[in-house]
């Protein structure tokens, strides 16, 4: 316990402020051409993915369920936000928050409804039901011409950049951390560890599970809304189970039940993929072929050497609330 009483500079609040400041600076430098926009892009994508992965961690990590439909809720958020941005004439300053809020609420509501149904089952049956909802959502969008069908929606106004993503990521983390470090987070862990014992200390298991599911869906919706207004183009295929498995890979790579792990998992995976791209590309264009061959090998190797993912069940100290830090929480 090197730091005394949690009164160090490395605290959530300071890191959060620093993150936003750095993001603003980097975005500014990028805009004036002093910072490589490719890196800027990678950072933005990382931010969006962190929201996705961390929110899924609530369900798959803390709650210990195996949900396979996260991309579906992302789709709901993305489409609702995109529609608001596209169809309602709003000043840019209002448009972004309003559309994001729309995405969050819509995804949250859908998540709540799906959760109501889903939590009648557990384990792999739950996996299938969530996967099924993901497919149903994608299939529905494909068939709704108003949503562009398989062609998707183009020309969505660009509302997102690194700064907005950083702000959203920080808020997400603040809320997730607060929840995890509260009676709700503890109840989720209880259910993961032993649902029957949880019930017998008076936890309304289904209600508490659905709370996690709804929150996770809502944040997936936030990520979707950011994504839609960053990429300016969305198509249903971007939200199918391949996307869900990408999210899962980053989640488990980082480690279940660890918000720090979700950051690490996303960063490690994204950086790995881009490093491979650059290294292989530097050698010869033919080697672009090998990227998808090498990356899964590295993934398997990491999992073989770190069974619990990079940070499984551990947290960086600064993510913990001061109170916990003072008690000497995890490294």
């Amino acid at each position, binding site marked *: 316990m090197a730091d005394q009483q949690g009164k160090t500079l490395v605290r959530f609040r300071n890191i959060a402020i620093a993150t936003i400041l750095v993001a603003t600076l980097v975005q500014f430098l990028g805009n004036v051409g002093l910072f490589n926009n*490719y890196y800027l892009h990678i950072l933005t994508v990382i931010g969006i993915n962190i929201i996705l992965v961390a929110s899924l961690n609530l369900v798959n990590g803390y709650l210990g369920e195996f949900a396979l439909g996260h991309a579906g809720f992302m789709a709901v958020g993305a489409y609702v936000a995109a529609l608001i941005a596209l169809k309602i004439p709003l000043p840019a300053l209002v448009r972004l928050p309003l559309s994001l809020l729309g995405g969050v609420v819509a995804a949250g509501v859908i998540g709540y409804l799906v959760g109501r149904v889903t939590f009648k089952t557990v384990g792999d049956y739950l996996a299938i039901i969530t996967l099924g909802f993901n497919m149903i959502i994608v299939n529905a969008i494909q068939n709704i011409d108003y949503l562009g069908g*398989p062609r998707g929606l183009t020309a969505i106004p660009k509302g997102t950049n690194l700064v907005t993503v950083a702000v959203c990521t920080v808020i997400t983390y603040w809320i997730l951390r607060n929840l995890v470090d509260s009676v709700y987070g503890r109840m989720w862990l209880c259910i993961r560890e032993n649902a029957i014992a949880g019930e017998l200390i008076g936890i309304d298991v289904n209600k508490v599970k659905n709370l996690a599911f709804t929150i996770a869906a809502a944040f997936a919706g936030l990520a979707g809304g950011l994504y839609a207004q960053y990429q300016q*183009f969305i198509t249903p*295929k*971007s939200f199918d189970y391949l996307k869900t498995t990408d999210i899962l890979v980053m989640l488990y790579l980082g480690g279940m039940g660890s918000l720090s792990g979700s950051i690490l998992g996303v960063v490690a995976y994204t950086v790995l993929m881009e490093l491979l*791209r650059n290294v292989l590309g530097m050698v010869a*264009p033919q080697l*672009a*072929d090998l*990227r998808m061959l090498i990356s899964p090998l590295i993934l398997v190797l990491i999992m073989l050497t770190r069974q619990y993912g990079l940070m499984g069940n551990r947290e960086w100290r600064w993510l913990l609330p001061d109170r916990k830090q003072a008690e000497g929480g995890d490294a």
Partner: protein
Amino acid sequence: QQNGVKIGVSAPISGDIAALGQSTKNAVLLAQEEINAKGGIDIGGKKQKVTFIIEDDENKPESAATVFQKMINQDKVVAIIGSQSSKCSNAGAPIAEAAGVPQISPWSTNPNVTKDKKFVFRACFIDPFQGKAVAGFARGKMKAQTAAVLYDVASDYNKGIAEVFRDEFTKAGGKIVGFETYNTNDKDFSAQLSKIKGASPDVLFLPNYFNDVPLQVQQARKLGMTCKFIGSDGWDNQELIKMGGKDMEGSFFSNHYSPDVDRPASKTFIANYTKKFNTQVDAAAALTYDSVYILVKAIEKAGKLDPKAIRDAIANTKDFDGATGAITFNGSGDPVKGAVMIRIDNGKFVFDSAVN
């Protein structure tokens, strides 16, 4: 200014349409070899070697966006060829547009791709054009009274053409007796085909890719369907015949070029390509090859590596003599370009007629 021109290529090297990624890569490498053999691109009288940076976009929009960002900002390419699928081009286009880097997609046929964009071009015709051409052909030359359609509902290309075909065919006095869909990666179409069989159409329109079509045709024949088949540019690949065999005989499809047409540009490309890679040309390869040369010509015409100038030169391309025919841009991102109808005859793609 240092020597060498860098051009980015965003291609689906891996993922569900990796076969097209392969063709893309082949065509680019062939063009690179040809250009550099001649000393490079002639820019203001000085020859500069060209390097193509080929990146894998996995046929995923997110990856395409990353690839575009990398090529533009990291590799500092002067222009981008790609991507193939419309969904990837759509993800890349806003980036190219914002950066002011010209983009030519070989084969993104979704009308949205170039919409309201100054820097985004394509080397192919668009879905509505093709749907209309095929519908006209079915009504006209094939004299079909009734038609059915089976298409991949999850794919923008297939769905786009299918819907235009339906509307145009009906407008031309025909009757659509079946309009069935499947999902990407389905391999069993018997349920849809059994349903279509009940309506016994004169022709069955299959605006799908060459890896699905042979299965659809085989299964239709095995169910005892006797109608003719007609398709779109997604058919253009020798695999169609390799897999479909004699069931494909007598079918028609619309395409960007014809292998047996008497055009020197097509002929030399096809000969060189076949020789170098020991495989047949397909639409992806031909269109990519044309995209590269449209760009190279434009760079030469601009006489400098200035994106804006290159962009203007592309937009003003007139009667470019490509492997897929004459291409003209009238200032917009979409070329004025004809289609051809191909007939499958003794296991060969044979020119049937031209549509403009």
